[in-house]
């Protein structure tokens, strides 16, 4: 019985770490820049396929793909920021939402053209190996994916907390006018911030691909997960995003243990509606302008 409980907890925490990085990019971009990126999960999906292609073509381990995803998606995020977001930032928010919605559809369907709607998995040499600790079975992939996620969260936290650029990003989120007064080039730093958010999305895609099967047209599910983490954890705070991710992971692993798999989704959706209702004050205050 105890081992059963322990393995549910371990499972939930490891999954939760991955969910935390899935929500992290969405939370930072929303909290600092006030942009609700509805295309977030499309980038998560691209991250999964980066891992898939690197493994299939070159036999590259997903751990390497995780590290590679960060610069690749950082640059991708900056490009998207420059091409799409700078153009709609001064316009009505509906235009921005429509543009990002179009981008999501575009990426999803380019993904479908490239990889069809077949469900894919990424298998590494250690896919079927597990670590057994006192009767609790910990699959290597989950340990590695969870560990990578924790490292990324720690890295982002340290970046925002201890570097001057990170502090400038936080300052920009708190008072963009004052940030300009001290000489911060808002457009440039926002591009960096958005790039960071997309980098997290891409890396999250790699971590998810290690654990779950995936296909281009199911990416919106991860948007639901990411959003759940964001509204549970609040905006723009790395530490609370981590806590929220673990909470979602635990809820899922407990539910999976006691009910059919599909029902778990419904529980999480209901949770989403409830938290949204309860937390609305905090959410409306933080969003100054939204895309």
């Amino acid at each position: 019985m105890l081992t059963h409980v322990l393995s549910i907890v371990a499972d939930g925490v490891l999954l939760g770490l991955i969910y935390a990085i899935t929500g992290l990019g969405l939370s930072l971009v929303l909290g600092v820049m006030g942009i609700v990126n509805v295309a977030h999960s499309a980038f998560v999906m691209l991250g999964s396929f980066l891992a898939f292609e690197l493994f299939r073509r070159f036999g590259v381990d997903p751990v390497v793909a995780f590290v590679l995803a960060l610069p690749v998606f950082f640059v991708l995020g900056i490009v998207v920021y420059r091409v799409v977001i700078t153009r709609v930032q001064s316009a009505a928010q509906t235009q921005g939402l429509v543009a990002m919605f179009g981008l999501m559809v575009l990426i999803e369907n380019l993904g479908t053209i490239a990889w069809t709607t077949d469900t894919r998995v990424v298998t590494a040499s250690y896919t079927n190996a597990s670590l057994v600790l006192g009767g609790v079975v910990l699959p290597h992939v989950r340990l590695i994916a969870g560990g990578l996620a924790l490292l990324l969260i720690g890295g982002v936290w340290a970046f925002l907390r201890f570097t001057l650029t990170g502090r400038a990003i936080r300052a920009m989120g708190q008072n963009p006018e004052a940030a300009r007064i001290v000489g911060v080039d808002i457009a440039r730093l926002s591009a960096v911030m958005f790039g960071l958010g997309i980098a997290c999305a891409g890396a999250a895609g790699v971590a998810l691909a290690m654990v779950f099967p995936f296909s281009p047209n199911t990416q919106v599910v991860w948007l639901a997960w990411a959003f759940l983490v964001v509204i549970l954890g609040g905006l723009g705070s790395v530490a609370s995003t981590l806590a929220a991710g673990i909470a979602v992971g635990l809820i899922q692993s407990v539910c999976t243990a006691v009910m059919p798999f599909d029902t778990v989704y419904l529980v999480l959706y209901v949770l989403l509606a409830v938290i949204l209702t309860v937390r609305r004050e905090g959410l409306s205050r933080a969003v100054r302008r939204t895309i």
Partner: protein
Amino acid sequence: MFSVFLIPKATGSRTAALAAWGVWLALLAGLAAYGLFGTRLFVLSTLATVFMYVVLTQAWNLLGGYGGYLNFGLVTFFGIGAYTTGILFQYHELSPFLTAPLAGVAAAIAGLAIGIPTLRLRGAYFALVTMIVTFAVQILALDLTITQGALGIYLPALPLKPIAVERLFYFVFLGLAVLVTALVWAVEHSNIGWALVAIREDEDAAEIVGVRTVEVKWAVNAVTCFIAGVVGGLYAQRIAYIEPTGTFAFDISLNVVLMAVIGGAGFWQGPLIGAPIVLLVADMLRVTVTSEVNRVIFSMIVILIALFVPGGVMGVVSRWRRARQPKPEDAAASGLPAP
């Protein structure tokens, strides 16, 4: 914010306005005549689908176009409507033509359930939740016994020849399209319309001047969902078989957004222009490319419109009309007092 006040209420001269109404009425008369005397099944069926999408897009236009609250998952409410008439037929043998209003009510209730938590927040949250909630409802339809899961529900074909069926739905959807377009026109020219535009342009200011923003959004969203539910309910009869994947297909949500954005969200004419463009182009493309390529093309068009052509076709038209009007600067130069 200022743009609200800068749009002249009556554009163009009186004769031009009359001519525009004449064109719309002639078009309507022509379509009615084709419905009565047309014999090509394919054309009748395609046009019936165009009308169906006009209704859906007009419904979307109310909250999305005028109010700026984008529903990226309209199919949720459409599908709930379809399942309502499907289930009522399955267990009570009631014709969807009778139960379509109930389908609308069921969809409106679902709309309230989603709208009440999300519409207190700003538009992006509503957009995001509507986008992801389709999945949850689809799972429900798969899991519940009443919906018969992946098996779906069969409705009997109407005891009519295929062309008569198409003719029937042609007029049903044409009638609804006229009705709903009239509703949207009326809303555009009413206080609700002004309240919605105020919400879209500057919600804080709208609240300050006394618009009960949250209640307006709830009510208009319920109307939008009601219409989508009615259309879904009738659609169930039209295709005579509903199952979770097809009935809650993301494509329907996507099409509605495409049509509104391309035609012009926030104009009553927008869906009338957008729906035929999207469907006819999609039909033409279908022969040569896969549906993915089709969506790639349309999503790029939507991004380009959002970035460079706000308001779609109608946005261009209204800017062109305004350019022909005397400008406020000219009025100031002519010695009139500046505001």
